[in-house]
């Protein structure tokens, strides 16, 4: 009874009510920010007295916003490439190998996912201070790669586990070299795993703020650090404009992800 929607009776309306309210609760801040970014009130009064594009033109007029976005993008792009490459090589070893401690190794590779980010941030900050990587592009890339790699390994190994290795062996028997077989047979078959690894790696780096706060210098800042620093001073509507653009990017990436998954099914 309780698991049959049509036969729930009045309980059905109670449950639907709670779900509707929760959905609204989850949606409220996102819509609110998008609306505020077009509102003319400096003090973020809602509903806004009028509508304007001022905050967007302020955002694009300030070179610090643009340069931090560009820094974020470059770091995220490099992290994505490295994370996918390293994730691919590692996944082959983890999935195909039958060596001792394979499970322990897999657990070690996934630990950065469960470790509180602040601990990693502080630890890397101390380490980079010693070896002079603080406030550098390399420092950013390394620290974000530590965070992105587990997602990449997870997505790619899952795809690889579902791939039947005998197809690759067949290609080798038909005269392909082992490397050629991997590149022309196996990689296309696990492309959805590679694709999710890329998206997760990119977003991990692009959205990351805690480690970035410790890695950044006055001259090298990512977009989240710029937002963070601005928010610590005041709640300017320019942040609403920046946030709205970030939300738009999320929606686009989600749509892209859904499209690719749909394309793979059909």
């Amino acid at each position, binding site marked *: 009874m309780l698991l049959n929607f049509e036969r729930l009776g009045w309980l059905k309306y109670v449950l*639907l009510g709670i779900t509707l309210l929760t959905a609204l609760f*989850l949606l409220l801040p996102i819509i609110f920010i998008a609306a505020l970014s077009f509102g003319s009130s400096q003090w973020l009064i809602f509903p806004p007295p009028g509508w304007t594009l001022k905050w967007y033109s302020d955002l694009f007029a300030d070179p610090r916003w643009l340069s931090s976005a560009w820094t974020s993008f470059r770091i995220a792009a490099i992290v994505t490439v490295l994370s996918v490459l390293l994730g691919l090589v590692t996944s082959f070893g983890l999935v195909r190998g*039958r060596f001792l401690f394979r499970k322990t190794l897999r657990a070690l590779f996934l630990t950065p996912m469960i470790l509180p980010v602040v601990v990693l941030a502080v630890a890397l900050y101390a380490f980079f201070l010693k070896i002079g990587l603080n406030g550098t592009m390399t420092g950013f890339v390394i620290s974000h790669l530590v965070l992105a790699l587990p997602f990449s390994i997870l997505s790619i190994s899952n795809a690889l586990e579902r791939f039947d290795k005998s197809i690759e062996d067949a290609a080798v028997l038909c*005269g392909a070299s*082992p490397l050629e077989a991997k590149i022309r047979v196996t990689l296309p078959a696990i492309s959805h795993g590679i694709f999710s690894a890329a998206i997760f790696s990119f*977003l991990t780096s692009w959205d990351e703020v805690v480690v970035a*706060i410790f890695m950044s210098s006055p001259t090298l800042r990512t977009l989240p650090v710029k937002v963070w620093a601005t928010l610590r001073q005041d*709640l300017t509507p320019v942040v609403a404009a920046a946030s709205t653009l970030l939300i738009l990017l999320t929606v686009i990436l989600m749509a892209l992800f859904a499209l690719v998954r749909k394309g793979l099914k059909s």
Partner: protein
Amino acid sequence: MPSVVALPEVATVKRREFRSTLPALLFLALFFVVPVISLLLRSVLEPQLGLQNYVELLGSSTYLKVFFNTFMVSAVVTIVSLTIGFPVAWTLAIMPSRWAAIVFAILLLSMWTNLLARTYAWMVLLQRTGLINKMLMGLGVIDKPLALVNNLTGVTIGMTYIMLPFIILPLYGTIRKIDPAILQAAALCGANRWQALTRVLLPLTVPGMAAGALMVFVMSLGYFVTPALLGGTSNMMLAELIAQFVQSLVNWGMGGAAALVLLVVTLTLYAVQLRFVGDESEGGR
């Protein structure tokens, strides 16, 4: 390209497969294991060898208040998320899939939206002149604005918002796997709705609830951004304390000690969870 096909010996292949995990292993050893362990070591080495940092950390009322705040906020966030999350997950599991798809899209959108953007939204919504206070006053619930931000109330609201999807999604999976026939059987045996809920449906979802609740609790314990922005300076949580020791006070010994406490609690709870999930999958077989 070799013209003769020779499949390499199986043992060699497997050894080579191990070799391909070495780059990632080296990378993580150098930039993950070594930095974390050396940070933790500093807690017993600085300013001199000994446990003085731990004595200070666990002996001072200022720091104990931070631990208390952290555990309280995490516990309240977990309980509230579970209370809201259970009915939502239940509804999602049985409602027509077209509607469920819309709710899922909203869940994913909120999860994937930049954390700072979401926190900023709550900073604005909860401020004294913000929409929430205005609405409550308009409805006549309160006469003057409530202090909803720069305190633990704000942190709890903001964190619950962030954690809800993390509890709804695993619970949804658990409820989906329950065979509706079990509840029909309960009804046939004379159970009323309340009995079917408390004696059949809820017990069957306990593994999912425990897994989700532990995950949310552990994530909340180490959260940094939302408490720092919504909590204000006088209501610190553990992650902020670690950052403060290192950034403003440059006290690496204390920072390392606080990090170790957070790490030990986190890893212990994860071990509990792994054991739990392990038992569940064995029971399923």
